[in-house]
């Protein structure tokens, strides 16, 4: 099964990536390759560099790449602006989605969707056509249309914010989605809705990276690979049972692995 997947070209290649912020090294040589149809999980303690990795792939301006490379669909993307990366199909689901007062959620979603459609040489949607599309996508995350007329994420509960993230993913139809702790702050029902939404959106042509602390998301979405990060490096990679082992033994077990190597 795996070898069949790898007949196609990789979506994302992170090669020996090191990065810092304010001269403080955060990533220290991370390598990761995602092929179409693959789901990767990245686990690790808070502060190990998981979120930083996701932000750097999305192009956050606060981090400097000091070494290594990121390739998306075979192209170097280090010099691309965040919006160019997003338009070409990289999606970052935020751990803490940002509130933007005064900007209507509906308008934000439309401008964003049209930016992606323009890149794909698809026709941009006017307000009426877009409303139809968005109503269809709302179903996926079982979101109330009332959220469309509010300001972006403003006054949304933690769970509503996460659903809004998955709604954006559904509209943008990315090639790769990096979901940073999308499961945190969700109750069991919301977790199921979000997980089933992610599964509906992804397909054999897309790649997904799930950053998470918990097995419960991975029970819903079974990863092909699990990577454990510590101190800015991937210290262990395995298949889905690695997550179970990790849950059982805790991060101390991986700490000992580092000492052994």
């Amino acid at each position, binding site marked *: 099964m795996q070898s069949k997947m790898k007949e196609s070209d990789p979506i994302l290649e992170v090669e020996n990536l090191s990065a810092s912020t304010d001269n403080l090294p955060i990533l220290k040589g991370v390598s990761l390759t995602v092929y179409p149809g693959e789901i990767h999980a990245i686990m690790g303690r808070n502060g190990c560099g998981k979120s930083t990795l996701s932000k750097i792939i999305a192009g956050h301006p606060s981090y400097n790449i000091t070494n290594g490379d990121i390739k998306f669909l075979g192209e170097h993307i280090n010099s691309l602006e*965040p919006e160019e990366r997003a338009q070409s199909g990289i999606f970052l689901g935020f751990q803490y989605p940002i509130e933007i007062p005064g900007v209507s959620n509906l308008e934000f979603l439309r401008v964003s969707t049209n930016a992606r459609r323009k890149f794909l040489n698809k026709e941009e949607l006017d307000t009426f056509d877009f409303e139809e599309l968005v109503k269809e996508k709302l179903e996926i995350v079982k979101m109330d249309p009332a959220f469309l007329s509010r300001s972006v994420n403003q006054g949304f509960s933690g769970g509503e914010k996460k659903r809004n993230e998955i709604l954006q993913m559904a509209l943008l139809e990315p090639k790769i989605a990096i979901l940073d702790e999308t499961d945190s702050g969700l109750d069991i029902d919301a977790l199921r809705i979000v997980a089933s939404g992610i599964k509906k959106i992804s397909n054999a042509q897309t790649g997904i990276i799930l950053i998470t602390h918990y097995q419960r998301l991975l029970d819903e979405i079974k990863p092909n690979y699990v990577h454990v990060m510590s101190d800015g490096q991937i210290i262990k990679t395995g298949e889905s049972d690695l997550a179970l082992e990790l849950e059982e033994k805790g991060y101390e077990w991986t700490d000992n692995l580092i000492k052994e190597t």
Partner: protein
Amino acid sequence: MVNENLVKDVVKEPYKYGFVTDIETEKIEKGLNEDIIKLISQKKEEPKFLLDFRLKAFKKWQKMKEPDWAALGYKKIDYQDIIYYSAPKQKEKISSLDEVDPKLLETFDKLGIPLTEQKKLTNVAVDAVFDSVSIATTFREELAKHGVIFCSISEAVKNHADLIEKYLGTVVPASDNYFAALNSAVFSDGSFVFIPKGVTCPMDLSSYFRINSGDSGQFERTLIIAEESSSVSYLEGCTAPMFDTNTLHAAVVELIALDDASIKYSTVQNWYAGDEEGIGGIFNFVTKRGKCLGKRSKISWSQVETGSAITWKYPSCLLLGEESVGEFYSVALTNNLQQADTGTKMIHIGPKTKSTIVSKGISAGNSKNSYRGLVKMGTKATGSRNYSQCDSMLIGDQASANTFPYIKSQQPNSEIEHEASTCRISEDQLFYLQSRGIEFEEAVSMMVSGFCRDVFNQLPMEFAAEADKLLALKLEGSVG
């Protein structure tokens, strides 16, 4: 930061309206004294009451001191170094637009205000003022059918002297403040509007003010009277060429609303703001005030202030009539080294009067933006209410924002509510929008428009779109 580099790449669009029209002008000598005032009055063939009004104002002005309480810093203005009358040379009497110098028509064309019969805007009547004189007023005949008078104030002085004598200076008396006194002494032209009883003005009225000459001041005077149960929406726009000297603009606007009348006055102010080093730009010292004289009358000010090196402006409402309503909706944007001290005064005099203030200040670059407002409840203002909301947005870390709300209440049975907030466009917000494929500049302008939404909603439609674009243009390259 990466953003800074990006910002440097953004092409800065120069001030679009900075051109000078090369036209022969008639200017009087620099300086200000009684003879100059007599000369202006004589050139305008004014009746004696107006010359007396001017001379009295001049005497008062000489005894007054330039105010220094605003949070503004600028080089002292030399009032003797200004030309107080400058007009493009034209034929003595112009009977139709065909006789207007084509260069002038072309100028307004370039500014997006076509005046000729074929091209004129269809939904709005325009009075075009060039330096000290009004060039043309469109749709006059159509308006006259409804009894609406819309013309330059100089014409009104000739043809409707009774109305001028009755109302001029009744809202802003010459002694009101230093700049109002100066204006009263030397005002050159401006617009006059009279809406008779029971008439809803069939179209928006608009004045467009253009400063062309670098060494003359502009002192326009606008007077709008809305009789019982009438209503009008009035728009005002302004631009000026780029000069490296500062030009003084000291206008007075007076509005009068009788019983059940309503006046909506909207401004998009885009005078030249000076360059990035703060060289040049208009000094904008303006007194705007409306008097809600009648019961249930309403005066609503909306302003989008983006230009001028210095803005000193407090469009206010005197709420005399029972249940009269005053509104002030303002967006003031400053960039580079611009300074703005703007706000409003809501003076509640009659009972059950109501006022709303929504002010949005945006400061970018090294600019300084202050809101200054007064809400006063007089002894008879029982059951009156005010709601104020003053929000500031900072862009970058060099700009400053201040809020000075003054509240005076002499009436315990009245309500005053004030809310204020300050926010900053954060890197995280920008990154969030960018990470959804939205371009950097568009992200900034989305957030700024979002911030100004409450005010833009109050503007007439065409104006709202223009204001949105204007802000985006002004902010290009200001976020780092």
